[in-house]
């Protein structure tokens, strides 16, 4: 009697754990995430200005590392956890240092192999939209450009192009 009870109890739990496990592995393989962000800042020529941007980006709590090319005013950001990437905060950090963003690119794992104009892509919790003239093949990982120049207003889309 006791055995039967414990068996009955165990069965639904094991099913549940199994489902969670399956879902976990599925989500791992399908997770579309931003790996790194590369930006070129504008409005500066001096190393002191470059350091101001570097310091401003480095203090963002989700940023693990910032690699700089002072000559090109370019910064490559990698993250502590890809889910926590905050594009608005990256932009704001550059503006806070007193400068603007010329180009912003990101390298990411995309959920699909084809990019179609106006199709929505969800990456690291963001909704992006492709801005393309024709269908393109996506490499894994793929480097793309974020078209929007300014900080995105709420409930808007970040547009992506190759």
């Amino acid at each position, binding site marked *: 009697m006791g055995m039967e009870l414990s068996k009955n109890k165990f069965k639904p739990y094991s099913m549940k754990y199994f489902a969670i496990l399956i879902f976990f592995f599925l989500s791992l393989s399908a997770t579309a995430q931003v790996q790194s962000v590369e930006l*070129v800042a*504008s*409005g*500066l*020529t*001096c*190393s*002191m200005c*470059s*350091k*101001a941007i*570097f*310091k*401003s980006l480095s*203090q963002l709590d989700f940023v693990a590392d910032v690699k700089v090319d*002072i*000559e090109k*005013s370019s910064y490559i950001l990698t993250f502590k956890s890809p889910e926590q990437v905050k594009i608005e905060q990256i932009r704001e950090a550059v*503006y*806070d*240092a*007193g*400068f*603007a963003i*010329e180009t912003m690119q990101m390298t990411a794992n995309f959920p699909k192999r084809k990019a179609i104009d106006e199709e929505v892509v969800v990456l690291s919790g963001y909704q992006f939209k492709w801005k393309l003239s024709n269908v393109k093949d996506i490499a894994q990982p793929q480097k793309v450009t974020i078209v929007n120049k300014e900080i995105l207003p709420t409930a808007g889309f970040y547009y992506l192009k190759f």
Partner: protein
Amino acid sequence: MRRIKKVAFYILLLCTSLFQFKDIKAQELFVNAEPASIMPARSIMIKQSYATMTGKENDNNFKTQLEFSLSKNWMTHLGTNYKSWEWYTQYRFYSKDAVYEHLRMALFFRAIYAASNAIHTNSILLEGQESVLHSGLIITQLKHKWASSLTIGALVKQDALAANGQAGFQYSFSNGLLLYPKKYTSYGQTNVNFYIELIGQTLFSDKAHYLDVAPAIQFIFNSQSKVNISYQLPLINESNRLTTHTAALSWDCLFFNALPKHKKKS
């Protein structure tokens, strides 16, 4: 007039010869003027300067200054030379950035409070010798090899006893470039910058005016701290100011992200 032409010729010669070098970069961290750009948001700068002024009389000025950047567009300074106090604030209202260039504009206001307005000359003295209000516009352009900044402001001397020179114009035109390094490889490289600045004053009530030239050399250490050496001398001096030549040495250090970030309400 011949002297001005001579000095202008040498400045032009120097500028054109410097342009012959490739990969010259502009610098706008001027020694005798503020650019329209604001310090990085939430940073603090400590500045210490020593100036020795000569002319009809000799004087020294030992000044300590604290500068705060309250946001990306607004900064304020507090300074003292231990005989007077100075408060300065600057707001950037226009900014157009492109790769290696920008055009920026800012408004500024400063108040100098001197304990005693003992000196009466037909010029307005801005090194803490008298109480003055000063406000105006700064336009700075950075374009690849050249950084130029124009400052135009109105001055009002806060001294009812002054017969002359109670109000006037103060203007400056600053230019700067990087001499070393030719190529940036790290923030640890020592930078050497050269500046040439023109500083002038014209009074409304009097024909008194002057125009000075101030060449300066600047060393930047660790992309964070600066040592400036400048020498200001008159090109035109139609005023009876007591000192005309200024040799200055200053040091400053910038502390990034020193002030807490204001959290936005979500």
